[in-house]
């Protein structure tokens, strides 16, 4: 009997059941870039064939069941004014002129962003390349591998354009700004973000919608602001689910170093199909997460991508994965995955080892 596909494995896991073996998730913008054969990052990020080629090779070499094809996190927001500089080794935001002198006026431009004729993300070069790359990848792998696909909520739309430290600062120093932002976030910015979410899900043939909960790091927001943000994100997730259909699974992304998994589960647990998070390597022990949530929701974790996978020996990687799988077997179901995209420079032999170890130890008997 032929083996089930990675996509089937992923769907079984997302339904809360155990497939033949634990699905393996990981992805990496920078490793895919290196695999594409295009040496200049500036050329790579606007070349859909190169982007698709990089991820094709990624899937083939590393035998993942779940992955993600993406560029930098500002690509979709270029049309809203997110400016980046592309250095030889990284894509990153430009320093805004309001970094050291706050400017309340920067939020004015968001009042009409719901006009998608004007603010279609595909007007940006990198986003346009991504959409084409997704088409290529769906043709090649759409029935075999699950591509995690999504966009963070409306607050992230603002933050990634204005600057995250800047917006965090501004809500403290400008009286009344929080209320103004709430109006924007529940209005035009929500509309834009929801519409773009639907476009993204369509681009991966409705495989899933990925919701980011990165901001729910215990060291980020105070409790009041966290609840404020959660009310907006909940509204966002409801609207997205209404648009794409409630049968489309919602995957998650919690790459935080100090994740407030309890808060995330309490507020969003009923709206998502899994809890992906960074452990080991973060402050939240995997064992504790397994005990608290393993019987209630599919969990995806187990690989310290910045520590052991990046700088550890083969033996250390093996010990880490074995231990994570042992803990994973105490859950209703479990997927093996890192905290976030794998880092450039992660030894390829360590990455290849993950599928081997999963095949050896991660079989559900």
């Amino acid at each position: 009997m032929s083996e089930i596909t990675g996509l089937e494995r992923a769907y079984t896991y997302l339904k809360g059941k155990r497939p033949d073996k634990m699905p393996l998730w990981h992805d990496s913008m920078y490793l895919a870039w290196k695999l594409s054969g295009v040496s200049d990052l500036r050329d790579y990020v606007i070349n859909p064939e190169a982007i698709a080629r990089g991820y094709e090779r990624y899937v083939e070499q590393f035998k993942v069941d779940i992955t993600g094809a993406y560029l930098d996190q500002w690509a979709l927001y270029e049309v809203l004014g997110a400016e980046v500089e592309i250095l030889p080794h990284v894509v990153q935001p430009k320093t805004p002129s309001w970094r050291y002198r706050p400017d309340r006026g920067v939020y004015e431009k968001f009042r009409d962003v719901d006009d998608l004729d004007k603010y279609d993300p595909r007007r940006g070069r990198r986003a346009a390349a991504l959409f084409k790359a997704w088409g290529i990848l769906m043709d090649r792998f759409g029935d075999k591998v699950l591509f995690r696909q999504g966009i963070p909520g409306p607050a992230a739309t603002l933050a990634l354009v204005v600057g995250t430290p800047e917006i965090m600062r501004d809500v403290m120093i400008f009286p009344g700004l929080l209320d103004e932002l709430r109006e924007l976030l529940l209005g035009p910015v929500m509309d834009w973000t929801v519409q773009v979410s639907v476009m993204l899900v369509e681009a991966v043939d409705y495989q899933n919608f990925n919701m980011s909960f990165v901001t729910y790091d215990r060291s980020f927001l105070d409790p009041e602001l966290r609840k404020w943000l959660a009310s907006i994100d909940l509204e966002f997730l409801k609207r997205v689910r209404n648009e794409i259909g409630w049968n489309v699974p919602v995957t998650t992304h919690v790459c935080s170093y100090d994740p407030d998994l309890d808060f995330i589960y309490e507020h969003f647990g009923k709206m998502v199909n899994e809890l992906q998070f960074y452990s080991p390597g973060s402050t939240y022990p995997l064992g504790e997460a397994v005990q608290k949530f393993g019987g209630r929701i599919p969990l995806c974790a187990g690989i310290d991508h910045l520590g052991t996978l990046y700088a550890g020996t083969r033996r250390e990687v093996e010990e880490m994965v074995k231990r994570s799988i042992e803990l994973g077997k105490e859950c209703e179901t479990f997927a093996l995955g890192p905290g976030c995209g794998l880092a450039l420079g992660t030894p390829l032999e360590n990455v290849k080892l993950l599928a081997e170890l999963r095949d050896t130890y991660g079989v559900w008997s």
Partner: protein
Amino acid sequence: MAEAIYEYASSFRPFDVEREVRRLVSEGVDPKLILELLRKALLNAYQLYRQGVYGLPHLSAMVTTFHMALEAMGDKFHPSENAPKVLMGTLGSIHYIGKDIIKCFYIAEGFNVLDLGENLLAEDFIKGIEFFKPHVVALSIFLTNVLNELEKIVSFLEEKELRREVKIIIGGAVANEHIARKYRVDGWGRDPGEAVKLVYEMLEKIGGEK
């Protein structure tokens, strides 16, 4: 009254702080007094942050307040001559908020700080080390894409036999014990409180290894 600075800073009113600092400086008030008031406000905010009452938005507002106050003081403010010297910067990327928060702590602590900024490569730090002759080099690192640059900085210090006099500490998303071990750095940390303690530990090591 100079104490208004503490109230304005604690209430996240950087423009009021800036105005008040300019006024006090023009009246000849000792900049060390101004810095002490800012330090109190910063430590108070950090305490509330550690207790979970405040978050990064509060610390972010503090960074802007500190920066605007220091700008307003201009060349009137100087660290003391014997102050420990810390060279800092972000390696290879734009990430700055964590570094800037820690910079405020270092300045408030009385260290002599030279912040090289962001998007730095090894040669920037090496020039900074040769120019500034720091006790501690504090690197903020968020991307593994540039860890080869960290290797170059460490190797430079080893080749020049400066490892006893100059200590390297790292912070940021990529800072962990595996990276610290692999790149032979002297310490690593993940929050401002640890960053200040680390400098004192490094100073002790330097004193002990002399």
